[in-house]
């Protein structure tokens, strides 16, 4: 019988296994994960799970029963350490021969370059989130290094847990100004400051040191921040080192063609945060660290494994959300500090708005939406319909203005 081995048992791996069954794959499916826990989802780790308002049971991706029912063999607790001669080798010595191999080993948090004395955390795994949650329940001060989405979410969650002394440090003067233009990015700094987080933007960290049972973060302007807990949220690194000497080329992720198939090794595919594939619309290699991409790429790879005569390209419209305090922030398609943009106010402009991004010709290519569900849906629809002529920024602006008008009488300020 044919056999697909999937390495990495988080959302990318689990969804590939499920999508293979949905595509009526009849062979064996073996799902390998290094962690000795049932597959779970990551977005809640910096949000509800960290806060303690949801439990592990609610963030599971696959139960033992569901795996057994759908014929997915779980091999948990042993890392894959190499690939040779058409087989995956596990740390415990097991060899798993494959007909197709799906690499879904994701990414890990970029480690603290300032050392990791006790009290310094990252957030990537369930263990990380449990440890951090325990530390935060013991009280502050908390210093978050890095004001990206994960850092911002941790700061927001910590405040919600009752911490009062929370500082976010970022060397960029206006964090997020690479993905958003500056005045828009500034709104998020203001959001944190308005909720009581101390923001120290435009200053770098030079050192983290232990100081009499506590910690100190030393900044490059000479100031020193006392901390009980430090969270380092400075990005992620793809888990591809285990593929060295396997004949599967990597370059900051597994290099794949537009079908998400390895550029060299036949019957090897990659999905999720570890995949660096040729985006046929952007005409370059792209690697995304977004939940929805992992799910869509899983469906694409499952289709391609089961339909070798009808290969599909993976050309997603990017989508990432971040939930901070009671704000819902979403990015769709291409956004960037150097793109032309217009801001459209929602019903309550102090908290709901959209920013539409266009290319040089005014074609609508991406958006930020904040606390405005209708705008999110409108923008995603406009970007995901390849058959219809592309929308202009003006078209979408018109749609959003009508949506706001329509929602005014009842919807203003709702939720």
């Amino acid at each position, binding site marked *: 019988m044919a056999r697909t081995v999937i390495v990495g048992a988080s959302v990318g791996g689990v969804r590939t296994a499920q999508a293979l069954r949905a595509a009526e794959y009849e062979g064996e499916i073996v799902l390998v994960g290094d962690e000795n826990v049932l597959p779970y989802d990551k977005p809640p780790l910096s949000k509800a799970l960290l806060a303690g308002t949801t439990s592990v049971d609610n963030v599971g991706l696959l139960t033992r029963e569901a795996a057994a029912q759908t014929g997915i063999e779980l091999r948990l607790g042993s890392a894959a350490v190499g690939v040779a001669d058409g087989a995956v080798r596990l740390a415990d010595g097991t060899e798993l021969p494959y007909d197709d191999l799906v690499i879904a080993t994701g990414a890990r948090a970029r480690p603290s370059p300032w050392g990791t004395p006790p009290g310094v955390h990252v957030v990537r795994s369930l263990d990380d989130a449990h440890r951090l949650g325990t530390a935060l329940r013991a009280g502050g001060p908390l210093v978050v290094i890095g004001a990206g989405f994960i850092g911002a979410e941790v700061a927001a969650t910590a405040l919600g847990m009752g911490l009062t002394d929370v500082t976010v440090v970022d060397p960029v003067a206006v964090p997020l100004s690479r993905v958003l233009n500056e005045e828009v990015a500034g709104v998020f700094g203001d959001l944190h400051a308005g909720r009581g987080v101390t923001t120290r933007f435009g200053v770098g960290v030079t050192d983290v040191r232990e100081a009499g049972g506590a910690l100190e973060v030393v900044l490059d302007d000479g100031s020193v921040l006392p901390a009980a807990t430090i969270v380092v949220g400075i990005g992620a690194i793809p888990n591809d080192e285990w593929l060295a000497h396997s004949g599967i080329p990597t370059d900051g992720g597994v290099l794949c063609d537009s079908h998400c198939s390895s550029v060299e090794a036949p019957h090897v595919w990659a999905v999720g945060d570890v995949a660096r594939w040729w985006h046929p619309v952007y005409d370059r290699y792209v690697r995304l660290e977004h939940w929805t991409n992992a799910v869509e790429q899983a469906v694409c790879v499952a289709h391609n494994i089961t339909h070798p005569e009808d290969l599909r390209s993976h050309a997603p*419209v990017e989508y990432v959300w971040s*939930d901070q305090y009671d704000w819902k922030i979403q990015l769709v398609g291409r956004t960037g500090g150097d793109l032309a943009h217009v801001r459209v106010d929602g019903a309550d402009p102090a908290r709901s708005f959209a920013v539409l991004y266009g290319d040089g010709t005014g074609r609508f290519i991406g958006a930020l939406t904040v606390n405005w569900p209708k705008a999110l*849906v409108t923008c995603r629809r406009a970007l995901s319909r390849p058959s219809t002529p592309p929308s202009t920024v003006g078209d979408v602006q018109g749609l959003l203005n009508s949506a706001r008008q329509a929602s005014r009488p009842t919807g203003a300020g709702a939720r």
Partner: protein
Amino acid sequence: MAVVKADLEACQGYANCVVGAEDVFDIDDGGIVVLLRTTINDAERSRVEEAARSCPVSALVVEDQ
């Protein structure tokens, strides 16, 4: 035939379902999923199931009727 069910408490308005099957799912002004219809025929079932599986908070299920 199959039916779609939505957990309105769990829904966070991420709108992946709308992108997956906009003839079945919409999102209202409050950011909660709206089922445009609940009965799904066999021919469209796998497409709607795929849309349901794309929900980040597993708020959607497709079940036998």
